[in-house]
């Protein structure tokens, strides 16, 4: 069922693209050798910089065969790194989901003072280097930081512990959901919400029955991106984690440690896990994009169906 829908969507899309892709007029067509040169160099570039590294990860990971590969993944430190990565994502993503939806809702549907400031603030994690983001948390919660003494007195560990890693990850993945939703919700306007209100729906019903279904695909897309970043974040997490093996190492940090110890096959085995995650994410993302493209397609007015 799902398969057939996807198929149908793909064919519609290709139909739509056909005129632009194939039917270029002679005025916009280059001589053959220019075409080949451009296409060739683009392909060479993509192969060299994107495809080869991806393949290299898997080749290096499996260089010593499947045995060492799996051994590297079930080794206790690796398992704890996987666990920590999953826990971090499991906390950071839902929090940013809730935050992103509420921020987008507020920004897209209401006018208020300081709106521009809020938008800029949401973008901050995009413009600040992740290492600096990590350092900020060290400065605030570290032993010599603002709250350092208080935290020590009360025996609360944030830096060089799991809470610090979660905080840094939340900071870095802050904008993904909100950024995805704001333009979408702004484009949709609030007429449907107003209609629901006039029909007697309360705020919760409006959100649950009208707003959420309309932003569903954009939201999923934002969550996928947010999750990918949460699992893959290195810089910020590296600063606050303290690299304690088996305790505060996430997958990317684990890869780095193994690599620095010249344990290449284990490093690449772990890296391949992250690469696999990236591929799955991209796959999901494409499916979501197809889905939402289909919705946009269906939104196009079809005046001639009448009667």
């Amino acid at each position, binding site marked *: 069922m799902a398969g057939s829908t996807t198929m149908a969507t793909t064919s519609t899309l290709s139909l739509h693209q056909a005129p632009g892709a194939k039917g270029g007029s002679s005025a916009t067509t280059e001589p053959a050798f220019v075409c080949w040169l451009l296409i060739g160099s683009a392909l060479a570039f993509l192969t060299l910089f994107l495809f080869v590294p991806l393949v290299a990860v898997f080749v290096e990971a499996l260089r010593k065969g499947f045995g060492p590969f799996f051994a590297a993944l079930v080794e206790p430190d690796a398992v704890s790194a996987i666990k920590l990565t999953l826990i971090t994502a499991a906390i950071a993503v839902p929090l940013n989901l809730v935050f992103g939806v509420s921020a987008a809702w507020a920004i897209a549907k209401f006018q208020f003072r300081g709106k521009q400031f809020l938008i800029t603030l949401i973008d901050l994690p995009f413009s600040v280097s992740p290492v600096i983001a990590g350092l900020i948390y060290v400065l605030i919660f570290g032993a010599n930081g603002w709250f350092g003494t208080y935290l020590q007195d009360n025996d609360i560990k944030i830096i060089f512990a799991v809470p610090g890693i979660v905080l840094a990850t939340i900071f870095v993945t802050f904008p993904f959901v909100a950024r995805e939703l704001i333009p979408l919700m702004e484009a949709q306007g609030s*007429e*449907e919400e*107003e*209609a*629901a*209100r*006039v*029909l*007697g*729906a*309360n705020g919760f*019903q409006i959100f649950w*029955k*009208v707003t959420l*279904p*309309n932003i569903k695909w954009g939201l999923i897309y934002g969550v996928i991106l947010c999750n990918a970043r949460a699992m893959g974040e290195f810089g910020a997490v590296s600063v606050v984690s303290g690299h304690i093996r088996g305790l505060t190492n996430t997958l990317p940090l684990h890869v780095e440690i193994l690599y620095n110890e010249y344990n290449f096959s284990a490093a690449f085995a772990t890296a391949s896990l992250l690469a696999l995650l990236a591929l799955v994410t991209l796959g999901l993302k494409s499916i979501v994009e197809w889905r939402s493209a289909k919705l946009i397609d*269906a*939104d*196009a*007015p*079809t*005046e*001639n*169906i*009448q009667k």
Partner: protein
Amino acid sequence: MSISVHNIGKRFGAFTALDNISLDFPQGELVALLGPSGCGKTTLLRVIAGLERPDEGKVLFDGEDASRRDVRQRQVGFVFQHYALFRHMTVFENVAFGLRVKKRHERPSNAEIERKVHELLNLVQLDWLADRYPSQLSGGQRQRIALARALAVEPKVLLLDEPFGALDAKVRKELRRWLRRLHDELHITSIFVTHDQEEALEVADRVVVMNKGHIEQIGTPNEVYSKPATQFVYGFLGSANIFHGRIQEDGLAIGDHTLPLDAHTLESEVDGDAVAYARPHDLEIIRHDPANPDQEEGGIPSKVQRILAIGTLIRVELENPANPLVPIEAELTRGQFDELKLEEGESVIVRTKNVRIFPKIDYLANRVSV
């Protein structure tokens, strides 16, 4: 339910959308709010619905102050300009929405909801579309579904914002007639906003002409068209020839000519510089006839510039001696035209059968300054 608004004012920043508006909408009437875009008509509608909070003034429902009542308690049906159908729900679910969100003890049973939705879909003659999604409907169908959805909660008032604005001319005409019939069946107090004078005159019991946040005239379609209270209404409803001139003892001096005015018109308070309005069908075209010079008196000598045959009417554009850029427009029936056998370039005399005089001031000047 009758509605009245008292001294409603609403500003958006420096822009005054509504300026001290007071109006009554009697029970069961279909009233049109008519005016150009930006005149405040939609804002007024949204204030009545409760979607917009006025800066000052009161909204009364059946004489009770409803200003503080939330939208949800006002029991109004609102039809949005762009329909605002829930795009992820079927037509059936769209219409059922208002019933499904009711509180548990007020909510009808599923069977009851189903019966009611189909009844409404039958009312708008679209029951066969129940399982479709809004994106699969034409504009006219969407509009009717939006109406059915608004009626589902049994509103006491129906408010329609430019209900036919986004439709093509033919569908628009059909829907207009259909809306009128529906109103006659349901007798629910209805207010609709439009910038289309034809729509307002054809559908409404009463027309409220608005401009720049205030009311220009309230009246039946016939009243506002045949007895415009202000220059604005004259110019907005139907086309008009405008003559600028000066009031004299016997008439309005326009350049070298004098437009004769009857004693009654002359007695009105207008003095000095004035503007005369005349509808194209209130102009008469005659030929110079040496045997009968009397009938030429008070006529403006002119020349036929263009003749346009538009359906049953013939529009004749005549040279304007006072302003060569804006021709005088006259409308003749085909019968009159065939009798006259006018030709382009021919010299004729134009006489006015019915003119309205307004003091020459404000309207245009105001428009420029604001």
